[in-house]
């Protein structure tokens, strides 16, 4: 891993279109090596108009070996499941195998242990009927729509989020549906209903329409105000809605969901919403949100946090100030505006500051937008600003990218990357950088419902900072993950960690050694874990 000097000096005349100058700082540039072919990955997201959005990937461990396995959506072609056969710290290696997940017409997928049996389940988003797949163990899955009362509908599903509402034994799923695919001459304004699948005993009730629906391409249950009750954030594609905007829903127990409104501080924002990433970037306990769009991405932070800790739902955009606009290609000769899809915060250089990945790719031959649009890897600097490193790090693919996942595929403490591409094979990169810093990886586990603690928080003390990571299921661009939570520690050799569970209860702080895996079971000491 190289150290690059991030210079304050920006070329005269270009300062107004890139981030404002920032103080000199050094940041460790990670090195990624593409191992797509060597790893055995060969999966293309294919299809024409009905697959112009989507193309997701789900990463999850379905054979209890700790290594993340992978499902890649294929669009009109069947999806492909890959079992992770990598050795710890070695080259990435996957083996395609039959799992029951190989459905066609799939746009994306999200893993979630719906029935809390300790075996990972999945929700498959499709053009047509969505399918809930029950994990049987050893990476075998079976359809569970009927058994779980899950109505798969017949839409064009493009967004997903999950939460366990207070006291629930069964999750609540939000599924975002796009335009009416049968509309030819006037598809605009034809956004179909988003559905909220709430529990009814150990099944799903009939879906509840989340009206108005504005063609979302990403959804996320998130406790944005630390109230203890996650709200549903919905990022909508303004290309298709009429009278729409971004949305934030109250989803609170038995109450009918309602939208946050002007009196609660919510301000209209209208973008080509395509993906959501969240992380507490400024260590104030409240997450920031990165929203992808076309030519104009947003990094939102709360406009103000009053002394009582109950902020209004007012966000301000700090992408420009933080150098995180990623609005056009940063390399090559194609300088047309960018089109951004999946986005995710992870610490790719283990310096204790999460970085930002953005998958880029033209919708389909849109000449106003870049067609050679490299994916971004924005490294966070100590002053909270971001510096582009996609080219130097080796992940600047100019394929037409869509979904993605950052995950430690070979359990070496470095976050790797898989990206789904339209009409081209998905790409896989191994993070090979020598470690700039140390790390830990943690899984939360509790008895009963919601075993993986979705909606909880992992907190890690690093010096005088507390890094907080919300365990969410949703967001990104039709790409979901379950598994190890990676935290970079910089130079720290030990870390104080604790879990804050979805019901608000906190465990005691515990000290753990850096560079290890830990299971945090509720109320129990952290348990070191080693791959077999």
């Amino acid at each position, binding site marked *: 891993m190289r150290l690059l000097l991030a210079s304050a000096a920006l070329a005269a*005349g270009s300062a107004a279109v890139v981030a404002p100058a920032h103080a000199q700082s050094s940041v460790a540039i990670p090195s990624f090596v593409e191992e797509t072919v060597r790893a055995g990955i060969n999966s293309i997201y294919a299809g024409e*108009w009905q697959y112009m959005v989507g193309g997701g990937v789900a990463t999850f461990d379905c054979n209890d070996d700790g290594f993340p396995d992978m499902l890649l959506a294929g669009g009109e072609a069947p999806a492909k499941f890959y079992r992770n056969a990598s050795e710890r710290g070695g080259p990435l290696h996957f083996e395609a195998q039959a799992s029951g997940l190989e459905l066609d017409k799939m746009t994306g997928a999200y893993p979630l242990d719906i029935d809390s049996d300790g075996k990972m389940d999945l929700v498959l988003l499709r053009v047509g009927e969505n399918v809930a797949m029950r994990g049987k163990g050893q990476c075998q899955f079976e359809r569970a729509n009927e058994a779980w009362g899950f109505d798969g509908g017949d839409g064009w599903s493009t967004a997903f989020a999950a939460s366990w509402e207070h006291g629930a034994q069964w999750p609540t799923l939000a599924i975002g549906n796009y335009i009416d695919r049968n509309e030819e*001459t006037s*598809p*605009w304004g034809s956004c179909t209903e988003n559905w909220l699948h709430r529990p009814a005993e150990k099944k799903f009730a009939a879906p509840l329409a989340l009206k108005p629906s504005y063609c979302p391409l990403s959804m996320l249950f998130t406790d944005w105000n630390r109230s203890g009750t996650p709200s549903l954030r919905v990022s909508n594609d303004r290309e298709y809605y009429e009278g729409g905007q971004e949305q934030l829903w109250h989803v609170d127990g038995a109450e009918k969901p309602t939208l946050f409104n002007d009196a609660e501080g919510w301000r209209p924002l209208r973008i080509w919403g395509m993906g959501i990433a969240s992380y507490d970037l400024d260590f104030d306990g409240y997450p920031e949100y990165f929203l992808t769009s076309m030519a*104009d991405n947003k990094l939102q932070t709360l406009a103000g946090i009053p002394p009582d800790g109950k902020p209004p739902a007012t966000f301000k955009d700090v992408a420009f100030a933080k150098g995180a*606009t990623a609005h056009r290609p940063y390399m090559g000769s194609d300088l047309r505006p960018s089109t951004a899809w999946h986005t995710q915060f992870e610490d790719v250089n283990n310096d204790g500051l999460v970085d930002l990945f953005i998958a880029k790719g033209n919708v389909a031959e849109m000449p*106003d937008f870049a067609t050679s649009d490299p994916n971004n890897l924005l490294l966070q600097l100590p002053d909270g600003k971001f510096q582009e490193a996609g080219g130097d790090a080796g992940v600047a693919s100019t394929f037409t990218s869509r979904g993605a996942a950052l995950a430690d595929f070979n359990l070496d403490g470095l976050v790797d990357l898989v990206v789904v591409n339209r009409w081209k094979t998905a790409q896989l990169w191994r993070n090979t950088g020598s470690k700039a810093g140390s790390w830990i990886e943690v899984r939360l586990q509790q008895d009963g419902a919601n075993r993986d603690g979705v909606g909880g928080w992992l907190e890690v003390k690093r010096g005088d900072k507390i890094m907080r990571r919300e365990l969410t299921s949703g967001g990104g661009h039709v790409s979901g993950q379950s598994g190890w939570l990676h935290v970079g520690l910089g130079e720290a050799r030990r870390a104080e960690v604790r879990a804050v569970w979805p019901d608000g209860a906190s465990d005691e702080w515990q000290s753990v050694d850096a560079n290890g895996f830990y299971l945090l079971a509720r109320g129990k000491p952290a348990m070191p874990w080693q791959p077999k």
Partner: protein
Amino acid sequence: MVPIRRMVSLAIVVAWLGVLNAAAVQASAMPPEDVLRSWYGMILKLVRHTATYSPPVASRSFAYIGVTAFETVAGGSKDLQSLAGQLNGLTPAPQREAGKTYDEALTLHAAMAHATHSFFGNTGPTGQRALTAIETKLHAELIAGLPADVVERSEAQGRAVAAHIIAWSATDGGAVIENMGFPMAYDLVAGPGKWVPTSTVAQQQKPLLPSWGRLRTFAMPQGNSCPLPPPPDYSEDKTSSFFKEANEVYETRQNLSKEQRAIARFWSDDPMLSPTPPGHWISIALQILERDKIGIDKSADVLARLGVTLADAFIGCWDSKFQYNLVRPVTYIRKFIDPKWETLLNTPPFPEYPSGHSTQSSAAALVLTRFFGENFAFEDGTHKRDGLAPRAFTSFQAAADEAGISRLYGGIHFRAAIEHGLEQGRCVGAYANALKTRR
């Protein structure tokens, strides 16, 4: 009133030959005015959903497409006079073959299809799909029962006229729009009262289309043919006219009535979220043309003249904007009155003076008044599908005045930009009204 459908016998057509050198038989089931409105309905959607379509760009396409339709219709009409020689740089369109039969609706359809594909070549996959769908649907309907030679000849004629207009459009300086209209390099003019970027969108750190005022105009001689008096002298003195105008924007925004808020929203006409301000006036015209069942000759005349004046209005307005390069209210008010002040509408990314919506609305109102008269009452439901209730107006000028003042309510313009913009629009509109379209 032109009848909905005219069946013109060959005998009558032959009688026209001395004038037209062509024969016209209308046999399609759909009258040409319906074809025209169908295409304009699609065009309004494409304006909203094509990323390059900022208001100036939209106005340009409305002009060229309007002229395409008009020249196509005029080629088969004994009453209409071509705009060739009247619009800057426009030469006569290809003529029809003498004594041959054309289907008017199909000819117009072919012209509109060709022009729309050309001017919206940059639209996304959904727009392309919708374009193809409407073209296929209309084509199937229009050719039913027509002889093959009439179909072939009519389509060729429509395409030829459209190609002629497209070729003309290529030389006006506005055919290529890069980076959604924001220059990659542009030196901002520094100094008190000069425009500075107002948004945190990276692209918008440069002003939109700073050279647009130098485009070739249509009916207006050139971009600076309708000059404006300067805005009030820039001053930070609280007793100055400039400060008072800024304070008026501030106070108005702080005390907006429900009605003022509704007016601001109604005329907001944001790019990518609406048909844009020029599209709003096209929409008004289309509603009236449909409501009053206006025939093809007048429909084509209205849409051509309206498109021309909207395009001229944006060229003239942009010429003035970059002449004066004035600061926006949000910049001034936050600096000298209230640092936390928020506008109701998003401040557009270009200089303030004059108000583009005012200039183009006033020009549009003058043109529509020419056709439909003073005190022509109408209801405007342009934004119904976006949840904004229709608004009723007693005249086109009343609508233009409301569009103008809406920008003050929205917090994005000072009063002088509105009042002088409306004046500028009247000057621009007069040029379009002076065009001779009837023999």
